[in-house]
């Protein structure tokens, strides 16, 4: 079907199909945790140690979250961000619609292969340093849909994940515990040692 000047919608669909197949083929196993490889580059380029604490304090107390919520865990995240659980305590209440402003991706929900290229693109658009929390059973392993033809079995097939939060869905307390783990992880970062 012709949808514009010389553009055939089937060509767009075929292109989309190739993108998904390529991504699926390159995602046969899980990516390693970022601290295994991410900091080598920083180690090569920066030598000072005195600003570690300041940087880590700044980073962990202003984790801005990308709003890329694909399914039902989103509602637990919405509870967490509203007044009862109040993630404003951690400087996280600013939810960003642009990945350029975000430090943290919380993968709230099942990811389908059809949606996977877009999520990967959003992650790649986020500026360094950036972290990923895999929230819920689907985020960790695909959950009950792990064997499905349409579902990505865990976000770590396409993104490096820092913290995993089990639950279906995890309660807000669990999400807060996961965020706390990530904050501790950020505290240990050192731009000199490279870990």
């Amino acid at each position: 079907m012709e949808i514009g000047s010389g553009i055939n919608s089937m060509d767009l669909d075929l292109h989309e199909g190739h993108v998904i197949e390529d991504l699926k083929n390159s995602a046969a196993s899980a990516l390693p945790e970022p601290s295994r490889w991410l900091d080598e580059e920083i180690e090569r380029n920066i030598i000072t140690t005195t600003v570690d604490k300041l940087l880590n304090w700044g980073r962990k107390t202003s984790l801005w979250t990308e709003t890329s919520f694909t399914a039902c865990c989103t509602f637990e995240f919405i509870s967490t961000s509203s007044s009862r659980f109040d993630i404003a305590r951690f400087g996280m209440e600013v939810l960003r619609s642009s990945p350029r402003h975000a430090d943290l991706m919380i993968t709230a929900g099942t990811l389908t292969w059809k949606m996977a290229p877009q999520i990967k693109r959003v992650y790649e658009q986020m500026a360094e340093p950036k972290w990923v929390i895999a929230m819920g059973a689907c985020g960790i392993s695909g959950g009950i849909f792990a064997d499905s033809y349409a579902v990505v079995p865990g976000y770590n097939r396409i993104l490096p994940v820092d913290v995993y939060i089990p639950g279906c869905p995890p309660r807000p307390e669990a999400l807060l515990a996961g965020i706390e783990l990530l904050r501790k992880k950020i505290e240990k970062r050192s731009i000199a040692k490279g870990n």
Partner: protein
Amino acid sequence: MTVQLEYNRIVEALPQNLASSVIAIEDHGLIIQPERLTDIAAFLKVEPGMELDYLCSITGVDCINYFEIDYLLYSIKLNHRCTLKVRLADKSEPAVPSLAGLWLGAELQEREIFDLLGINFSGHPDMKRIFLWEGFPGHPLRKDYGHGC
């Protein structure tokens, strides 16, 4: 409350050449020949007393021995409903006429059934996958589809 149309009443109202294509009357639907589906639907859409002007949903079912497609029709004006069903015995190349010419809303639902069950809707303006990507092997809602990544 919406009333279920008496199927006997529908069959009596149909002209002779269409009534002969009714295969059976069951509790939950009027089973008709796939070839005459468009004619019967077009007739029921405008016939006074029927006026089934709203296509609520189309459902495809894999019944192992045959495919069944259910059309749920409503009359907004007269507040009644009825279900048309067609059965496709040929499971290798199943095809049925498209109703997208009568109800525009049929277009996306027919693409969904084409995507997940592999039933071809002849006369459809844009017959291609809708949920899965181009290049996906098979049709996952078929009972003989092997599940697993």
